[in-house]
């Protein structure tokens, strides 16, 4: 049996000791991608005695997460559990009509940072100087500017991307689509998230469009962290050790313990 994990950098294991995220300061990727085996998703696979397949990648939006998890389920036989940790709602994936010269060709995620066109803004965010990562970003920004992605991101966030409503609504579409897909396929799944604002924001809007989606959510298959928080908010607020921006091994280990019982029950229910 295989556990398929979907998510962003938290699920990939960014900044954990046993993971490597390839950076491409020269436009090539010298480092081999290595997925962490210390994330709460990987530890859950170990607890369940399942093989681990990680479909997550740093920077993924909820649209990428849904897409890559569905692709993984279609190409993987014997999926025993899907564990998805949804990302921040303010990220968006598009398939551009040209090669973005990034890792996935035409597919590209824009985040609130995609509108930056001055490397100094990014440098200021670094808690520790890292010339390799900075060179990666410099290259990345130059490409985005040259191809027009920076202008596209600015226009998108100006007109709708920065809207709390639109970010919640478009993320909910992905959540509901994946939920229905997994239910149709009778694949056991557990959903979690990095920041509870995805659920809280969608419940704030009482109009029919939003509430129609909210009503489709089956919250029995969700796990939130103590205080109804997402993984990142919980780890940050509980003062777990954090690397540059990501919670480190201890938070993952405790998170795995927190979700263990429900994951076991979910797998048992489907067998």
């Amino acid at each position, binding site marked *: 049996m295989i556990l398929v994990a979907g998510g*962003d*950098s938290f699920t990939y294991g*960014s900044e954990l000791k046993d993971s490597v*995220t390839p950076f491409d300061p020269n436009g090539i990727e010298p480092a081999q991608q290595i997925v962490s085996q210390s994330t709460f998703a990987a530890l859950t696979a170990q607890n369940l005695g399942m093989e681990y397949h990680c479909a997550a990648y*740093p*920077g993924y939006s909820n649209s990428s997460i849904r897409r890559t998890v569905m692709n993984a389920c279609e190409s993987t036989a014997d999926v025993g559990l899907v564990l998805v940790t949804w990302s*921040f709602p*303010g*990220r968006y994936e598009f398939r551009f009509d040209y090669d973005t010269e990034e890792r996935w060709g035409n597919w590209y*995620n824009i*985040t*609130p*940072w995609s*509108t930056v066109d001055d490397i100094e803004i*990014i440098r200021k*965010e670094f808690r520790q100087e890292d010339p390799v*990562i900075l060179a990666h*970003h410099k290259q*990345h920004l130059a490409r985005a500017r040259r191809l027009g992605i920076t202008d596209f991101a600015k226009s998108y*966030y*100006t007109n709708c991307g*920065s*809207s*709390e409503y639109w970010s919640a609504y478009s993320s909910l579409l992905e959540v509901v689509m994946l939920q229905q897909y997994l239910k149709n396929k009778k694949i056991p799944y557990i959903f979690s998230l990095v*920041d509870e*604002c995805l659920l809280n924001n969608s419940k704030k809007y009482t109009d029919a469009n939003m509430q129609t989606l909210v009503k489709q959510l089956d919250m029995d298959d969700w796990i939130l962290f103590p205080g109804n928080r997402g993984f990142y908010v919980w780890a940050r607020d509980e003062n777990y050790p954090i690397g*540059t*921006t*990501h919670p480190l091994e201890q938070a993952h280990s405790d998170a795995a313990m927190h979700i263990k019982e429900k994951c076991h029950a979910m797998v048992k229910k489907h067998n």
Partner: protein
Amino acid sequence: MQWLKNIINRIKLEINYRKKLKELRKRDPFIYK
């Protein structure tokens, strides 16, 4: 006067966008891709 209203609306939109983007970046500080 329409041109003035257009400029004011554009400035308002820009201020709103910058404010919201700042909030989004605070919420999602993960620039490492």
